[in-house]
Each structure stands twice: as C-alpha cells, then as structure tokens.
C-alpha cells in the first residue's frame, strides 16, 4: 500500500480552481495533467483581472487621473512581486514581455545583435524548447556566428563533460533550460553559469518550467538573463518576464520602438527611457501583469517549497505506477528527485496522439506531440510522446485514473 505523503491540503487548494470541478464529457470528470503546457488559474487571479476591468481599467504611466494612477500602481506592483519572487536586485531588472518566447527573442535581438560576431559561438542544448533554439538560428544566419548544442545522455541529462569540451574562448553565451519541458530534467544551471563565467561567457536561463515549481533566486544563480511565462505559473496568458542584470540591460539597445520606451522623440532621432520601460514599447499587458501579481501571491501563500515536494511525491508515484504498465517507457531521469513533475511517455503499440485522444475520452488531459522540442525527440528517434505534467492541485487519484486509461489504450490497439 502506498502512503500518499504530501505537505499540501490538495482538496482545499482544488476549491480555489473553478475549472477543475467539471465533467468533460457527461459523467467523465476532468483530470487536468497538461500543466507544462499551461496551468489553471485560481479564483483570486481571475477576479483580480475582472476587478481591474470593472473598476479601474485605464492606460498606465501617462495618466494623471485617479483610475490611471491606480492602474499604474497595480501594474508596477505586479513587477515588484515578480522581483521579490525571483530575488532580483531591483524592479528595474524585471521586464514584462508576452512570454518566455518573446523574452528569449528579446535577448537575441538586442544583446545578441550588438555582441555577437562571425566566429563567435552560442551554446544551447539538445533538450531545449524551440523558443531557445530558433531565435539563435535566425540570428546566426544573419550574423554568421555558430550555434552549438550540449548533447544529452541516454537518461536525459546534459552531458556536462561534452559541455566543458564545447566551452572555449569563442563562446559568448550559454543559453539553457532550467528544467526540461519534456523530461523534467533539472539542469545543473549553477555549475553551468560558473563554468561559463569563468570563460567570459554570459548565461541565459529558460525558466519557463522552473519558476512555477521551485524556488529560483537569480542573484544566487548569478545568471545574466532569466526568462519565464505567466500562464504556466497560475497567471493569465499574454504576459511573461525577462530578468536581466542591470548592467547588461543598460548597455543593450532597445527591442521594439514606440510609446513608453522613449524619453524624447524628434524627427531626427530619439532618446530611450530608463529601465525597465526602455524595453516595454506600447501599451503593455496591464490586466495580465496585475493578474500575474495575484498568482505570485497565491504561490507564496501555499509555499513554493511545499508545491515542489507535492509534485515530487506525485512524480514518484506516477513513475512507479507507469513502470507497471507493459510497453510504456518514460523519457528522462528515472530518479524523481532529479526531475520536475513531468512524465513523457512512449507506448509500444500506440502513437502518442492516439494515446492522448483515448485518455481524453476518459477525461484525462495530457499533451501529445513533440512539445516544441523536436531536436530532443530526434535524439531519441521518436516522433512524439504523450506527456503528463503535474501541479499543486493534482492528486494521486488522478494518476490512478490516467493509468487506468492507459490500459484502455493498450486494449484498443491490441485488438
């Protein structure tokens, strides 16, 4: 008998997420296991945005009337909460973007465009999300530097020896996921940052899958850039974050041009605004930044350490139960302590897409495909995986449900 050991009162938490209490098909309750794609939102986040639109919706920064001042304060408060969450040295180092993807593209298009030259090297990894590969490929084609990739080992870890082999004085930037969105691997980013800094290279971290699930301290890590998305951490769609060390951000050219990012515009040229607004052109995602602030409050109230423990318990249980299903293989580290709450499955008889479709009929929402990590799948010679991913509101029961549905898949394709 398994003892379900978790520090969270999951039933109480589930009460805060209205979406979880529904039947997806008549008589079939929802089991949401696609948290790596996007998380659900607690009532407090939904209501905070609702309240904004019903009570003080106004454009920010440039208004002297009450509603605009309230909106500005609430928007900048969202920034403060993020700065505190990741322990940025200053709110000026926290830039709002649309998401991780825009954050990483911002680094490529500003820092990259002025600092990378032909002959330089940017190191990424074979397990990256496309958003940390494609921007560098596009820029490399324009500028002529080289992109090299840290290979992965059979059990889904970064090959650190190979990394040290790649790291020479041509390397200007190492850009790596904190946690893999397919295998859950928690990468040794602190070690990577130290090694890269010793060679004079900067380090950008894709934290899309870490910030929602574990404590991140950008100053302790000493990373140069750090990117993540609101929608994966209980916040709304439409907003994300780029953290950057102030000295880098000051030296970088702006990204997009327009309102709010300038101090002065003349027909002959312009002067940029102070940080962080220099990188926030145009009307920002106001309601979204406010909602994100409430998501941070919620995470803090529950406790990110406890969330992490809960997810590790779920993952350990899921890996154990999955190991009992014949013909199922899970990518990545076998030890749940080395990974986040993600299980990407390959079934012997059935394509990932069919797995997900049959699971869906049982109410179980998992994602099928390459999860925007084609190179990783190419590495393992797999076209697609069916990925289950967990969050604070998931239960051990839900994992049992998924396992049951997997047996239905096997039956269907065994006929």
């Amino acid at each position, binding site marked *: 008998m398994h003892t379900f050991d978790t520090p969270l009162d999951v039933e109480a938490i589930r009460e805060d997420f209205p979406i979880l209490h529904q039947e997806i098909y008549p008589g079939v309750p929802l089991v949401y296991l696609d948290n790596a794609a996007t998380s659900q939102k607690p009532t407090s986040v939904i209501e905070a945005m609702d309240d904004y639109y019903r009570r003080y919706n106004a454009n920010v920064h440039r208004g002297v009337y009450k509603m605009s001042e309230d909106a500005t304060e609430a928007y900048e408060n969202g920034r403060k909460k993020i700065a505190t969450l990741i322990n940025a040295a200053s709110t000026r180092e926290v830039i709002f973007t649309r998401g991780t993807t825009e954050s990483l593209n911002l680094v490529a298009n500003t820092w990259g465009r002025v600092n990378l030259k032909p002959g330089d090297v940017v190191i990424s990894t074979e397990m990256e999300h496309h958003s940390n590969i494609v921007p560098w490929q596009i820029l490399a084609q324009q500028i002529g530097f080289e992109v090299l990739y840290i290979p992965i080992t059979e059990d889904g870890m970064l090959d650190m020896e190979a990394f040290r082999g790649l790291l020479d004085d041509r390397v200007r930037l190492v850009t790596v996921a904190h946690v893999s969105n397919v295998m859950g691997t928690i990468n040794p980013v602190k070690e990577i940052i130290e090694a890269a800094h010793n060679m004079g290279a900067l380090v950008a971290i894709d934290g899309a899958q870490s910030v929602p699930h574990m404590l991140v301290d950008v100053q302790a890590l000493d990373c140069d850039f750090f990117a993540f998305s609101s929608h994966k951490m209980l916040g709304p769609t439409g907003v994300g974050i780029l953290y950057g060390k102030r000295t880098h951000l000051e030296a970088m050219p702006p990204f997009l041009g327009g309102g709010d990012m300038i101090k002065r515009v003349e027909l002959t040229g312009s002067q940029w605004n102070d940080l962080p607004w220099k990188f926030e052109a145009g009307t920002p995602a106001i309601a979204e930044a406010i909602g994100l602030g409430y998501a941070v409050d919620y995470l803090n109230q529950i406790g990110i350490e406890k969330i992490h423990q809960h997810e590790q318990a779920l993952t350990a249980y899921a890996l154990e139960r999955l190991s009992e299903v014949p013909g199922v293989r899970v990518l990545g580290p076998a030890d749940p302590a080395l990974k986040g709450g993600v299980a990407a499955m390959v079934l012997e008889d*059935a*394509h*990932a*897409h*069919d797995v997900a*479709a*049959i699971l869906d*009929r049982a109410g179980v929402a998992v994602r*099928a*495909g*390459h999860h925007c990590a*084609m190179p990783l*799948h190419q590495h393992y010679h797999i*076209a*697609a995986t069916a990925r289950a991913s967990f969050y604070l509101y998931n239960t051990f029961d839900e994992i049992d449900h998924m396992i049951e549905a997997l047996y239905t898949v096997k039956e*269907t*394709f065994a*006929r």
Partner: protein
Amino acid sequence: MDDLYREMILDHYKNPHKKGLVSPANIDYEEDNPVCGDHIHLTVQLDENNVVKEVGWDGEGCAISQASASMLYESLIGKSLEEIRAINKDEILEMLGIELGPVRLKCALLSLKVLKAGAYGLTAWPGEDED
C-alpha cells in the same frame, strides 16, 4: 470501444494499404503535421492520359493520419488528375466516418493536404482557409 477508433480505422492503421513509395513518380510530395510530427510522403504514377496508374506512400504518425492516408491513397487508382484535384475535405471525413475536433482534423486531412500540394504543386491549395 470509442467510436474514434472504429474497426476499419484500426485495420488500415495496422495493415496500411499501398505503403511503400513508387518510382518513377509524376507526383512526389511530403509534408509534416507540425502539431504532432505526423509525416506523409506520397508518390503517384500517372498514365499518358493523366490517370492514376499506381500510388505508393510512406509515413508515420497516429492511427487517424495513417489510416486516412491508407484509405485515401488506395482510392486514387483509376482517377484522373482532375478528379484528384476535386477531392474535398468532406469526402475524407465521410470515408473515415468519425467526428473530429479541429486538431485531430489536421491529422485526418494531412493525407489530403499532401495529395493536393502534390497535385497542384503548391504548399497550400485553394480553399484551405475554410478549415
């Protein structure tokens, strides 16, 4: 069992018809479904009247995409190029006989997309917007 996986679809998936490329080919086109990495490669031999003499295909992917390719491509033999160009989405769905959401629709229609692109020499054929 779920009607998504009707007997016939599973049959075509497990024992696909006309699998294996033919050469030389008058139509030769391949494409991915970016959603899930499904892949289909189609080759078609036409006779001197532009009527399909032989087809062969290769691919990997989910049951829906592969069964749809197996059924559709087998049905091409004896059709004229004009008839091929006229095949539409509804015919495929009728052939499959299942209800599909917008994402699975892309799986089901990948074989048609490859066929049309091959037959027209385009990556998108007129009318695709109506999806």
